[in-house]
């Protein structure tokens, strides 16, 4: 994994991190470096260890083995209150006996910030999250989205170097979620804080992050920029977890010197893999995004192609989705951008489907990842 290659030392650095709960191995061999000012999301299915990893950084859990450094210092013996880290909890954890203002003021009060200064900073932060007018409401009188904003303000007002956010938007509906995502990006730019963001929503991860850390069963599967993770998944798990993809399964054979060919139901595809992850005699799979496929004539040099029959067409405004079955019997989907007046094939049509070679990724079928 090639993260943490920037010149300055990373702000958070996990090396060989292991976490066990009794006999259960929750995190295995975690190596991760997060740089100052980055938005990094931890993405993965439910139960994969995202919250656990975050709680380790915050200081609520300790590593069974391995080291965690913040700002170059080993923080194993540092309790949560001494770490330059603030957390926004999955279920907000706002204080019910305090109103909005006092919730946000809590951290400053604890640190002994003088009253006038405290009031000024809390009010500025409430303005940022647009909760000024509700500053005297109690927590029980707020909506989910308002709670979320208070939780964000309560953490941010302390000016933490690192803000840990554990699925803060999970309880909100799509519209507020999109609004809050924008807000969060803006706040991050304004404050320059490092965000570590936990989600199991791939859209959130891709919209928000500089880098995505994909986790499966307590292991980091891939760390990459969202676009690289999407178009260059390094494992079948990554390909399937992010967005929709078509998979052409087959067996790799050596077709020449340094040349591999994927033998599928639809004939051989010459593999132009620069990835050493696959080799001859492996069961492998070619992953292609539906939007990378089209009905135009293929160029044998640049494109892969199959012939197929359209089973079904779904029109959805800006786009159309085609369900197809290849001559070899493979089911797959194509997504096309709609243009006014463009003639598109209909169900029952026999079509030629092609996609650029560099838009496809050949991945080993085994679950062992990079």
């Amino acid at each position: 994994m090639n993260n943490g290659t920037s010149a300055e030392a990373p702000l958070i650095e996990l090396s060989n991190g292991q976490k066990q709960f009794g006999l259960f191995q929750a995190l295995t061999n975690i190596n991760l470096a997060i740089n100052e000012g980055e938005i990094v999301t931890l993405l993965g299915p439910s139960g994969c260890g995202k919250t656990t990893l975050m709680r380790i950084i915050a200081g609520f859990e300790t590593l069974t083995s391995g080291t965690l450094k913040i700002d170059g210092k080993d923080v194993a013996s540092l309790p949560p209150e001494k770490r330059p880290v603030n957390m926004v909890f999955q279920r907000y954890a706002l204080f019910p006996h305090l109103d909005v203002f006092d919730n946000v003021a809590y951290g400053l009060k604890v640190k002994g910030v003088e009253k006038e200064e405290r009031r000024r900073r809390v009010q500025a932060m409430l303005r940022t999250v647009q909760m000024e007018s509700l500053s005297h409401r109690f927590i029980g009188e707020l909506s989910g989205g308002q709670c979320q904003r208070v939780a964000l303000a309560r953490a941010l007002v302390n000016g933490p170097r690192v803000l840990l956010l554990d699925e803060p938007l999970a309880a909100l509906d799509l519209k507020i979620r999109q609004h809050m995502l924008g807000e969060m990006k803006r706040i991050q730019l304004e404050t320059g804080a490092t965000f570590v963001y936990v989600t199991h929503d791939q859209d959130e991860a891709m919209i928000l992050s500089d880098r995505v850390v994909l986790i499966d069963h307590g292991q980091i599967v891939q760390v990459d920029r969202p676009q690289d993770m999407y178009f260059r998944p390094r494992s079948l798990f990554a390909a399937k977890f992010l967005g929709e993809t078509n998979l052409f399964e087959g067996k790799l054979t050596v077709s020449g010197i340094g040349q591999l060919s994927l033998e599928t139901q639809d004939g051989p595809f010459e593999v132009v893999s620069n990835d050493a992850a696959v080799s001859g005699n492996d069961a492998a799979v070619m992953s292609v995004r539906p939007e990378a496929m089209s009905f135009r004539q293929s160029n044998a040099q640049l494109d892969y192609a199959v012939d197929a029959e359209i089973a079904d067409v779904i029109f959805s405004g800006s786009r159309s989705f085609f369900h197809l079955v290849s001559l070899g019997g493979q089911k797959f989907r194509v997504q096309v951008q709609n243009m006014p007046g463009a003639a598109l094939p209909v169900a029952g049509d026999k079509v030629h489907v092609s996609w650029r070679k560099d838009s496809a990724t050949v991945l080993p079928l085994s679950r062992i990842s990079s």
Partner: protein
Amino acid sequence: MTPSQRTGGILAAPAATYMLLFFVVPAILLFSYSFWISSGFRIVPDFVLTNYISAIRSPLFLRVTYNAIVIGLVTASVTLCLSIPVGYYLTYVARSKIIFYLILVTWFSSYLVRIYAWRTLLGTNGLLNAVLLQLGIVDTPVQAFLFSPFAVAITLTHIYLPFAILMVVSAMSEIKAELIEASRDLGTSALGAFFRVVAPNAAQGLIGAFMLTFILVAGDYVTPQMVGGSSGQTTGLLIADQFRKTGNWPLGAAQAFLMFLVSLVIYALVLALGRLTGLIPARRKTKPAREVA
């Protein structure tokens, strides 16, 4: 009346009726007795303050009431201070419920047996004296352990501790561990989180535990009788005697209501102290959030 109010009313009716018949009515009767007079061996309806005046003027009543207040406050404070760490441990630290059940099991032993146990422990030939003699701290057995306010306080602490723990646990279990983590995340130590987050949110339960212990102790008339001696007598015993021995119900009733007033005053003082120290939130906590559909 909305349907849910009606349902609530129906569900509450049996308990409300019971309380009305066996608590409110007797309390009103008792209150009116306190203005009657006892002449000879009969009780005569009247409306005089004689009973209250003679109670307040009686040095015995003042002395035992003072005893009751001191023993009550000491026992309630010690009990609360002991039950808070146990309650905290049971709510946030313990992984199994075993200790909790063990505490409940202590109720299976009878109240009287426990008083006798303390008599044995504190008596002239008791364990405490034996240990002190062995260690050479004293050379003759200390008589003062038993038959003293100290004996009453220690026995009653033992008896009411499980009640207090139970109340503390139920108050704390309403407070999610996440709130403590949030507090620590924002810069307090674990102890700071207790005072700033747990105590204010559990305030009602903690005060409940304190007041329940106080009232039970101040009204107890068995323990003082058996381990209190003359210096450890409390109002409860004096009041009981008016009903059992002297037959002066009006005086007993007046004394009981004075004790009730004392409890109210103590409650008010505890609340004021809590507000002053910030352990009780000054503003009323609002209802919990409506469930979001």
